[in-house]
């Protein structure tokens, strides 16, 4: 064949491949998105008129009556400044009371007269910073090891810990369904009181006597970590320092003085996803949806006829997986079975329940036949037990989950 034709063919083929898969192999380098804030232009006359109006006490403006009654929000929630958080700590439980209003309008505050005209930056009388701004990044004292809470011993080891039920509660074997009154028979006179039921206490790993009685390691740093000082910036002077102010008002002012840093004004985006991931996933999802496929890597799928209909999303798969794993009890498995990964295939009914007769082992890895049999039986028990009421699968996508293959890999559980 002519060399030119070959070179041309290779070149064209490479171009087609690049067009098809270039997105996957050569991730485009997106520039970081710029936070955009819409502004409006005004003349100096308009500005003066506006500011002069703001300085006058406006008695006509209704003061929100709910404002003074609002509980003082915790500083962690209301302070918009990105305070450095060197230590990853478990966030405190959410308070039952409603969140305070984010950044109310400054003119709505009862101390509206205090809002001063925006001064020129050079005459700002910002308070002295508590400490000089460091020239270089200051080291932050952190514990040597992660201060994770020590797991408590519990008879049940589960992916998520559960607190011990109250002493008066009985652990329910199965959820008690509500009893509907039978129209044929009269309702009994005396209704027996059922004791409250609670989920069984669970921990995330096996706690032996040795670890249970071990002294807690000193995780705290030897000296206190000082927060990094924010760079000095222009700030409005305190014009009416004599007047006492409610705490909520001063917080309102702080929020109003730093509108650019208010989280609400930033484009909302999941923290775990970068813009590039977002884009590539969007393209991938669009392609997958156009072709009726899912979002799994192609290497995980065998060659078989494609199914029609929308694909099962990652969230739906996760819900399915979680529903099965909470019934997958590996506590009574032998050491060999705990080293065996089995893949189980089954057919599903449209109501989300598995066809128990169709559950079969199609593959096992890493153990003996006996271990594989035990592992398969544990997997089958999990599927049947938790599938009694039907798994949370979207009925409109039944064609996608009519046949399911589940891989049960207990290797992570062996080290619990």
């Amino acid at each position, binding site marked *: 064949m002519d060399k030119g034709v070959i070179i041309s063919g290779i070149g064209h083929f490479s171009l087609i491949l690049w*067009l098809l898969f270039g*997105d996957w192999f050569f991730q485009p380098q997106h520039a970081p998105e710029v936070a955009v804030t819409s502004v409006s232009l005004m003349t100096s006359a308009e500005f003066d008129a506006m500011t002069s109006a703001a300085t006058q006490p406006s008695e006509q403006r209704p003061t929100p009556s709910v404002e003074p009654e609002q509980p003082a929000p915790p500083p962690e929630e209301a302070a918009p400044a990105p305070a450095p958080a060197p230590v990853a700590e478990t966030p405190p439980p959410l308070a039952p009371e409603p969140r305070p209003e984010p950044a109310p309008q400054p003119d709505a505050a009862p101390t509206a007269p205090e809002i001063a005209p925006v001064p020129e930056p050079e005459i700002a009388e910002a308070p002295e910073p508590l400490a000089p701004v460091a020239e270089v990044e200051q080291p932050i004292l952190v514990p040597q090891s992660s201060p994770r809470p020590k797991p408590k011993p519990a008879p049940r080891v589960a992916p998520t810990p559960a607190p011990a039920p109250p002493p008066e509660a009985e652990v329910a*074997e199965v959820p008690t369904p509500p009893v509907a009154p039978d129209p044929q028979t009269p309702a009994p006179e005396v209704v027996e009181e059922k004791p409250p039921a609670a989920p069984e206490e669970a921990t995330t790993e096996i706690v*032996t006597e040795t670890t249970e009685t071990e002294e807690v390691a000193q995780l705290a740093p030897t000296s206190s970590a000082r927060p990094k000082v924010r760079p000095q910036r222009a700030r409005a002077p305190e014009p009416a320092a004599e007047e006492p102010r409610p705490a909520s008002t001063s917080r309102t002012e702080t929020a109003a003085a730093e509108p650019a840093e208010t989280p609400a004004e930033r484009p909302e985006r999941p923290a775990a996803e970068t813009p590039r991931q977002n884009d590539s996933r969007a393209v991938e999802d669009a392609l997958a949806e156009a072709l009726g496929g899912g979002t799994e890597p192609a290497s995980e799928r065998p060659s078989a*006829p494609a199914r029609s209909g929308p694909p099962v999303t990652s969230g739906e798969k996760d819900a399915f997986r979680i529903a099965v794993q909470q019934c997958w009890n590996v506590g009574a498995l032998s050491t060999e079975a705990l080293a065996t990964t089995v893949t189980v295939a089954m057919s599903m009914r449209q109501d989300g329940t598995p066809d128990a007769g169709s559950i079969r082992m199609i593959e096992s890895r890493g153990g003996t036949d006996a271990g594989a049999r035990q592992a398969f039986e544990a997997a089958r028990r999990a599927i049947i037990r938790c599938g009694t009421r039907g798994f949370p699968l979207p009925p409109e996508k039944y064609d996608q989950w009519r046949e399911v293959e589940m891989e049960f890999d207990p290797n992570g559980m062996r080290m619990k």
Partner: protein
Amino acid sequence: MNLFRSLAPMGLALALLLPAAAPALAQQGPLRIQITEGVIEPLPFAVPNFVAETSGASQLAQDMARVIAADLSGTGLFREIPASAHISRVTSFDAPIAYNDWKAINAQALITGSVSASGDRVVVKFRLHDVFSDQPLGEGLQFAGSASGWRRMAHKVADVAYSRITGEGGYFDSRVVFVSETGPKNARAKRLAVMDYDGANVQYLTDSSSIVLAPRFSPTGDRILFTSYSTGFPRIYLMDVGSLATRSLAEQPGTMTFAPRFAPDGRTVAFSLEQGGNTDIYTLDTASGTRRQLTNSPSIETAPSYSPDGSQIVFESDRSGGQQLYIMPAGGGEPRRISNGAGRYGTPVWSPRGDLIAFTKQHQGRFHIGVMRTDGSEERLLTASFLDEGPTWAPNGRVLMFTREGAGAGGQPALYSVDISGRNLKKVPLSVPASDPAWSPLLP
């Protein structure tokens, strides 16, 4: 970048047009899910009272069901659903099982059985059911024996159930030899005794006229090695369990012998011999009396324990300055150290499965029972107390029993057991203080 963006739609169009590219993205075949997280919790099971097929067997049927339930619950791997929660009653061994009734109370395993007694002969039939599969798990079985051996029959039923569900061998039909201790710490009377693994049926093998230590079963369970101070010095003895006949082994004036343990062949005994202030490990052929020295070091070598295949011996030695664990070939040779952590390691015992070595560890004023792999890796400490020592393996290599003693003059020794995962630590119910347990093999 812009070039890429402008070409991306073209790529999309091409992908739509080219069927060859479609399989890479479309969901094909079954939905695939990977499960890597589960739960570890006792498996709920139910043992309704066995059906009495003869008039005199009703109490026996009830007692056997209780022993089976206690055996399984005692492992920590199973949790019995009490009879008060049962919905259906089993009135006939051959009647069909109402699986839905057992599913409703979340019983994942069900054991049904019947007992018939005729004179001194008792027959127990049983069947294990996988409730959520709506079918029996394996074939039904039956055991026959004398009425006095009903507990052993119940243990055997539990062994079969345990083995079928977990895939591991059972250990309920086994015995434990131990040293029964009475009196204050400074004047203890010690006797050899045997019991069922669960503390029942205690029988004494020796009187308290002399101090006895460290009894060890033979691989067949018919003989016991132990150390006695009957001559004023420690010396090893061999006892026949059936006749209680005892004879001295390795007699040599001016020496002390102790820490004996059988080789898997049941014929060779490894032990420690102290001579002239030095202690080394020897072997002795119990049939011919031939003795052979395995170690020759100025340090103290003791507590030998064979690997299940009989090819290696693990022992403790202070040759490196501290008390550590070493492994050497069963015929002697250069030992290699396997313990590397801080503290002192002693009383190593090789697991019947061959994969782990149990030991006693003393570190920072506390004693631990622990396990490690045979190369010294993956050391796990299972217990911690004022004094834990002398672990012994259950026949299936899943459970350890050991001695725990409290502090002070009033601290009495007691036997405890723990799963090799560190769970299910519990005291063996015994009415007398006890120490130095040694588990027998599974009884025939």
